[in-house]
């Protein structure tokens, strides 16, 4: 047990800094205009999603294009738990994680028989299949296009058993009496994020994580050495599926509604982008990537022509017009254009993501200002920054 929680000193520092940064999020993000719970909840939830995806993609190199399916399954499970058992978020996220894990075990068991692009397409096929089914045949479970919602007439067996009656109002989830909207909701998600980060940290530092990295660098050699790699890859797949399920469950906790559009393959593409943007295979990268994407999505899609006109009002009339019309392509409705362009730029120029960029800058600075000492340090320790 002691072994399980023991960390090296720099990892303890990392974890403490991370925890502090997450809990101080409301204060830190305030100057950036993001200091309100709805957005910060999103940061945390997608951070969990990307962390989990990174355990699969960053460590083993298997590019899954179907992770949104697990997110969707998690959401549906959580809402059903709310409906049937209790409005308490704890059972909801436990069930969401477990069902997400089971679902990913089934899909992973089949998909992992293939590697490379075949694996990507198999996962994509499964995700599209789930999405299509959620819209058509499974309507009794998923409520189709409307999305699964809470109802006053839901049984909520446990709540009734413990004598909680919500009466005629539509309940929202609450943790032993603390309403899970607003700030408490954020702190709940943030706690989950930190727990998930800790688990990911443990995986990264463990022999198991080393095994996953070995799969990425040369699977054939692993097999020649006598390792059966599939159980390891499957374990990574299931873990990332559980992360996705948990993220989906948390989405339902903060807003008890589940729709099939969460399972569409563009949603899977989004988590890939978050991971790549932050830096696949690094610990902090995916969380930063998820935060950055959700932040810019929020900022950019709120812009409209009026705000742009103000922003460029220092320019002469004609020039202002040109600037406004060009940049209005990229904001508001056109946010996806920015996303696509960003995607391309990152993959082309910075395949290692933001963390790689930070590391490069560090090396640059230490080479320039440190009198050889910093440079030598960077050379002797080529592991990516984390």
């Amino acid at each position, binding site marked *: 047990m002691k072994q399980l929680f023991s960390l090296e000193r720099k990892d303890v520092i990392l974890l403490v800094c991370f925890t502090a940064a997450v809990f101080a999020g409301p204060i830190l993000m305030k100057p950036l205009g993001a200091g309100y719970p709805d957005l910060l909840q999103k940061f945390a939830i997608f951070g969990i999603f990307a962390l989990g995806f990174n355990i699969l993609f960053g460590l083993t*190199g298997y*590019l899954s294009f179907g992770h949104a399916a697990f997110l969707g399954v998690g959401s549906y499970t959580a809402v059903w738990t709310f409906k049937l058992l209790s409005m308490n978020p704890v059972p909801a996220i436990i069930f969401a994680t477990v069902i997400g894990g089971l679902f990913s075990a089934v899909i992973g068991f*089949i998909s992992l*028989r*293939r*590697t*490379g*692009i*075949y694996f*990507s*397409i*198999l996962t*994509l*096929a*499964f995700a*599209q*299949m789930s999405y*299509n*089914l959620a*819209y*058509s*045949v*499974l309507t009794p479970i998923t409520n189709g296009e409307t999305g699964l919602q809470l109802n006053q007439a839901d049984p909520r067996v446990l709540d009734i058993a413990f004598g909680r009656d919500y009466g005629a109002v539509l309940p929202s989830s609450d943790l032993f009496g603390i309403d899970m909207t607003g700030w408490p909701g954020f702190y709940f998600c943030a706690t989950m994020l930190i727990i998930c980060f800790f688990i990911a940290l443990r995986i990264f530092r463990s022999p198991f994580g080393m095994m996953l990295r070995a799969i990425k660098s040369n699977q*054939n050699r692993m097999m020649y050495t006598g390792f059966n790699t599939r159980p390891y890859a499957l374990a990574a797949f299931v873990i990332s599926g559980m992360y996705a399920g948990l993220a989906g469950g948390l989405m339902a906790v903060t807003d008890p509604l589940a729709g099939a559009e969460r399972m569409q*393959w*563009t949603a899977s*593409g989004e988590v*890939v*982008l978050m991971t*790549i943007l932050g830096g696949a295979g690094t610990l902090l990268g995916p969380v930063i990537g998820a935060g950055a994407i959700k932040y810019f999505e929020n900022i950019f899609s709120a812009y409209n022509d009026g705000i742009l006109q103000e922003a460029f009002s220092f320019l002469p009339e004609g020039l202002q017009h040109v600037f406004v019309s060009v940049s209005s*392509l990229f904001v508001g409705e*056109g946010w*996806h*254009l920015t*996303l*696509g*362009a*960003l*995607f*391309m730029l990152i*993959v*082309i120029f910075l*395949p290692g993501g933001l963390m790689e960029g930070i590391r490069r800058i560090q090396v640059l600075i230490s080479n320039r200002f440190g009198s050889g000492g910093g440079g030598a340090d960077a050379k002797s320790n080529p592991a990516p920054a984390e």
Partner: protein
Amino acid sequence: MDAFFLQILNGLDKGGAYALIALGLTIIFGTLGVVNFAHGALFMMGAFCAVTVKALLGLESVREDPTQMTAWGTPVEIREPYVETWFGDFGTFLLDFSVPVSILVALPIMLFIGIAMERGLIRYFYKRPHAEQILVTFGLAIVLQEIVKSIFGANPIPQPAPDVARGMIDFGVSIGFDAGNVVYPAWRLIYFLFSLAVIGAVFAFLQFTTFGMVVRAGMADRETVGLLGIDIDRRFTIVFGIAAVVAGLAGAMYTPILSPDYHMGMDFLVLSFVVVVVGGMGSLGGAVAAGFLLGVLQSFASMNEVKAILPGIDQIIIYLIAVVILLVRPRGLMGRKGVMEH
């Protein structure tokens, strides 16, 4: 029997579109070794070539006729397309046949787009891992799609087929069924024949020309061809252009069947990738065969009799088949050994 036959017909036009896109994907993959997630976007851009051509041909001169009054007391506006003013009957013909005419326009445009894409972006990714190829082309697809959306809007834009081809053909009579049993929209048949023609042309090009021979040799062993002193990169650039043209033509001709909107490419892309995988990565024949096969199977799965037994099967049949094929025959129906097996 004729219901059965009708379902095969139903599947063929969609299968034609799948086959054309999958063919382009396979050519690109076989020659350049690049997984092109932007191929669906090329299909979509072809479709919007048709939209643009129709819009341009439909530009009208408006003049007011003071001798006639509308019910609101304003002069009647007489709109006359410029092409009709200039070319008379030929102009009317052009307007009516805007979709077939757009092929002539789409061809050079798509060739240009394809070549520009290869030179500007794809060629830097030959040596990169497949994951990065997938990601960068995925990003490109989003960008292209959003640009089209910002120009043409988000709603589907219906494109009429030419008047002649708008009706139904009583197809059954000519092959021995009673009249009225196998009635089928003419344009869908035309699309099927068109896709066969394009597929035939591509195969003939690869099989019977020197250029095609070099390309096939390059698909088999790129390095040796390079050592023989042939500038294989330049040929492959043109091959990419051709693949873009095939996708573009497929899109342009498909517009009367499905009104184009900006995300039609993505919808087709996912299916086409499944088609390529089922057919076998790198096998041209496999891609075409799998395209038609999956199109037909999909239309069978959407029959009411089948749906009564297996509800929802029409939604997932293609993915289900892909899963089964990949597990039973990992290389796809006609896949070659040694392609994408690391």
